[in-house]
Structure formats: C-alpha cells, structure tokens
C-alpha cells in the first residue's frame, strides 16, 4: 500500500504470542523475567506448550493524512497490535518504528484512569497527567476540554455519578487535548450518544487534513469504518489478511472471509450494509 505521504509508523514483521493456560503463563513469565535479568533474549519464534500466536508476522506502514481502520473479529489481535504500537506491550518478533518526536495518544478503555470519587474537573488533571500533560498545559486547556466534552455543570460533580456516555465524552475530550500526531482509538467510540459520536468523527476528519497526522481506528463495526476510514486493514486470527484503500471491497472481503461459519442471515445483513453504502458513495 504505497502512498506519497509521510510514513508515521512502520510495523515490521511483528509477532506476539500469548499462553492459553494461566499456570503455564505464570511459569513462562517467571522464566522470561529470570532470562531478562541475566541478559538472555526472550524474543523467540518458537511456541512453548499451550502458547499461540496472537499476532503473526504483521507488516504495514501508517501514513500521514489518513484514517486507517483495523477491523477483525473478537480475538483477532487488533488491540494487541495497537498496544504494541503504543509501547504498552512488547513484541516477541519484529519492530515498530515511529517517526521521531511524534506524539502518540492511544485510547483503549475510555474510563480507565478516571476516579469515580473525584469530580470531572479533578479527573481532567488526573487523566491528563497520565497522558503526560503538566499542570500549566492542563490549566490552559481545561476550558477547551470542558467545552468539547459538553459536560456542562456536571464538571464539578463526582465522575461516579456520570453515565457511561458522559464518562466517555470526558475521557475522549482529554485525549483530544493532547493534540496527538498519531491518534489510536481502540473501540473507544462504541459508547456515547450519536451527536457526540458525530462530533468525534468530524474532529477526526479535521485532524487528518494535516498530512503529518494519522488516526488508527480499531473496531469491529462495519458502519463506523464506512464512515471515517480511508484505508482498511483486516486482521484474522492474528494475521493481516487484507490491506486496501477500497473500503467497500475490503469490508466485503472481511465479511466473506471472517464470517465463515456464522449465520447466513447475519452475513447477508452485513453484506447488504456494505453494498448499500458502496452504491450511495
């Protein structure tokens, strides 16, 4: 998928393995900790008993000026991949190369880091600090965050009393205030009201007008991909099975390839949705 824009992230032969069994997982972890202490590399392409590849040999580039959607069934490795790209997980094989001085803001679970006993205003400082913002920056941005979140007078109410939509709005607004160069959104817009969601999609589209900025949008919702993506990566059982800029074609492939064994009715419904959007476009 060559493109003329700047490459912001290069994902090169990334593989990641996990273990299905908790006891084995702990034992392997213990071994890995000891190996790392004495300088033995734990990066290996061999699976130990009960391990499996959550990601296998994934390679792609992320370009500036576009929204790249990553779609796949549950357990296909989408979140693991974005956690590796965000430097939260370490890969067992391969490497992620990030353009220098680019700021990555990942949002995974929107409510993570919010403290229910504290007010929305206090939480802006808590979660904002987790994104690496300092006190002065947050004081300068707090009005923009409150305004974007549309929380209104509830901003001085404990977050524990917020609805899930309000929490999502607050969290998303804090993440937006970091002004990231690479914005990784993992299923984060699945909740919240439709008006706010539309506002977020507009914000994402505005963001990528800057050719240096990229958005990586992880989901398994076809309609959201159709709405915002310019490029589609399809993951299936840890493997990258499709990389395309023809979103309709990519989604048809996704439904046909990944929904094998699913009910025909559900599959046809999804195919209709994609085809209908394709003809509208």
């Amino acid at each position, binding site marked *: 998928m060559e493109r*003329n*824009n*700047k*490459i912001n992230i*290069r994902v090169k032969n990334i593989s990641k393995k*996990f273990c299905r069994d*908790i006891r084995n*997982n*702990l034992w392997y*972890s*213990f071994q*890995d*900790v000891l190996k*790392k*202490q004495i*300088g033995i*590399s*734990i*990066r290996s392409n061999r699976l130990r008993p009960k391990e499996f590849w959550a990601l296998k040999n994934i390679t792609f*580039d992320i370009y500036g000026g576009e929204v790249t959607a990553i779609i796949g069934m549950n357990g296909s490795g989408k979140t693991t991949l974005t*956690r*590796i790209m*965000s*430097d*939260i*997980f*370490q*890969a067992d094989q391969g*490497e*992620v*190369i*990030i*353009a*220098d*001085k680019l700021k*990555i803001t*990942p*949002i*995974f*679970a929107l409510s*993570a*880091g919010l*403290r229910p*006993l*504290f007010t929305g205003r*206090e939480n802006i*400082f*808590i979660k904002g*600090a*987790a*994104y*690496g*913002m*300092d*006190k002065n920056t947050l004081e300068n941005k707090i009005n923009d965050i409150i305004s974007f979140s549309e929380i209104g007078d509830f901003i001085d109410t404990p977050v524990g009393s917020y609805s899930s939509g309000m929490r999502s709005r607050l969290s998303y607004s804090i993440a937006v205030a970091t002004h990231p160069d690479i914005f990784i959104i993992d299923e984060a817009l699945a909740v919240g009201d439709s008006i706010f969601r539309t506002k977020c999609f507009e914000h994402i589209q505005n963001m990528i007008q800057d050719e240096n900025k990229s958005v990586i949008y992880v989901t398994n919702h076809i309609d959201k991909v159709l709405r915002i993506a310019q490029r589609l990566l399809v993951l299936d059982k840890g493997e990258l099975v499709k990389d395309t800029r023809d979103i309709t074609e990519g989604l048809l492939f996704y439904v046909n390839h990944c929904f094998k064994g699913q009910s025909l009715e559900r599959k046809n419904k999804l195919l209709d949705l994609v085809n209908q959007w394709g003809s509208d476009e």
Partner: protein
Amino acid sequence: MVLEQYKYTKFIQVRIRTYICLQMKSILEYKFFIYQLTRVSVLARFKKTRLGLFWMLLSPVLTVVVWVILHNAGIFNPGDTGLAYPAYVLFSSTLWIFFFEAYKSVSESVTYHSKILLSHPIPYGTVVLERIGFHLMNFIVPLLVNIPVILLYGGKLGWTSLLFPLALIPLLLMGVSLGMFVAVLKVVAVDFSNAMDEIIKVVKYLTPIVYATHADLGFLSQIVKWNPLTYLLGFPRDLMLCQGWDLFLPFLYVTFLVVILFFLAWRFYSISSPLLVERLFGN
C-alpha cells in the same frame, strides 16, 4: 516521501543500562502525574470514611495494648527499653509500620495500577514513586502522634532527634527494595510473593520492637543481632529518644548493603516491568 528521510525511534530492545537511563528520564517527565496519583490515593482513602485518620492510628495503638497487657501480666520481660514501655512499644511499632507499609505499598504498585498501565504507556517507575509518596503521607500523622506520647511518658527529645528523619531513609529504602522485587513476583510468581509476605511477618518478632535491642532472648538473641532491621529500626529510634550512638557503626554497614540492594531491586524492577502488563490479564 520515503521513510529514511526522517529520524525514527525504534521500539526494540536496547542495552539494559540505556533502558534504565531512559526509564529514569521519562519518570522525570511524568512528575505531575506522580503528584496527581499520590494526591488522589491519599484523598480517596479518606473520602469514604468518617473516622479517617483514626484508622492510621489503630494498628500501633492495638499493638501497644496487647504488649502492655502481656508485660503487666509478667508473661514477658522486654529488657531495659530506656523509656516507659507503652511509649516505647508505640514508637517502635510506628517505625515497623513505616517499614512494612513501604514494602506493602510498593509490592502492590503494579497490580494496584494495572488498569492505567494497560491503557497508558507510562513509565513503571511512576507507580513506585506514587506508592512511596502515598506511604510517606500516611506516615506523617502517626509519627506526629508519637511525639506528645513520648514526652507524656517522660521521654526526652534533643538535637539528635532532628537527625531522625534522615536516619529513616535506609529503612524506607529497605522496604521499597523488597517491595520492588515482590511487585514483579506478585504478577509472575505468586507463591514467592506470598512466602515473602509471611517471612516479613515473622521477621517482625525478630526485630526489637516490643523488646529492647540488647534484651536477653536466649538463642534468639543471635538472630536478632544478625537481623539488619535491628539496626535500621534501632538506630533512628535511639536518635529520636536520645539514647546514644551504640548502633551507629552497624547501622552504617547495613545502610551500605541496603543501598546496593536498592539499585539491584530498581534494576530488577525496570527490566522485568515491561513483561508484567501483558500478564496482568491472567491475575
């Protein structure tokens, strides 16, 4: 444009020393986050309780009650403590709690902050520093309560008492170091961390808390003599209560060992911590 025209950062394995230096640097960039987390942890503790600070005093007060009863019943001879027994036990117990809570807080750093570690790429050292900050804030009130109690029981404070906070640093480092080892083991080797918790509980009775440093304990006296906590806890206590410098030299030796232990623990924690997050799902 092509990739090579830009400077790029690689998320790959670097030399261990470089990795630890990078960790230290990024911790400094997150100092406001550490402050916020500490503030939130301290305030959250009191937001749901009406009795608030009382719970921080309960443990040392209960220890005093139990040991004073045993002492008055003649079951137990603590030796020459140099201060009225209730005040001695209260103060010593406070110091033990200072050590034990430092250990416990830091050992829970990864599991306690698992959600935030799974969703934000923050340096792991930040959660250790937050736990230390939280622990120090919790310690201030019980420590201040000790001062009037010591004076009430006829103890005296002098210029050496001013050195007391400095002398506490090695005891803090000891707790933090053990905590950092156990923080990793708590995720990957639960049996080891449980064993460590139990060992520390036993060590409490082999440390001069409810008896004097030189009390005659029979065969246990030798174990107490070789226990580093005897000096890490005993010397600051002697400074505070103006009871002389007898323990200074062994305290210095033990401090030297504790500093080495701390650097080993920091290295262990820094190198192992990136492996921990993905294992938190299994815990």
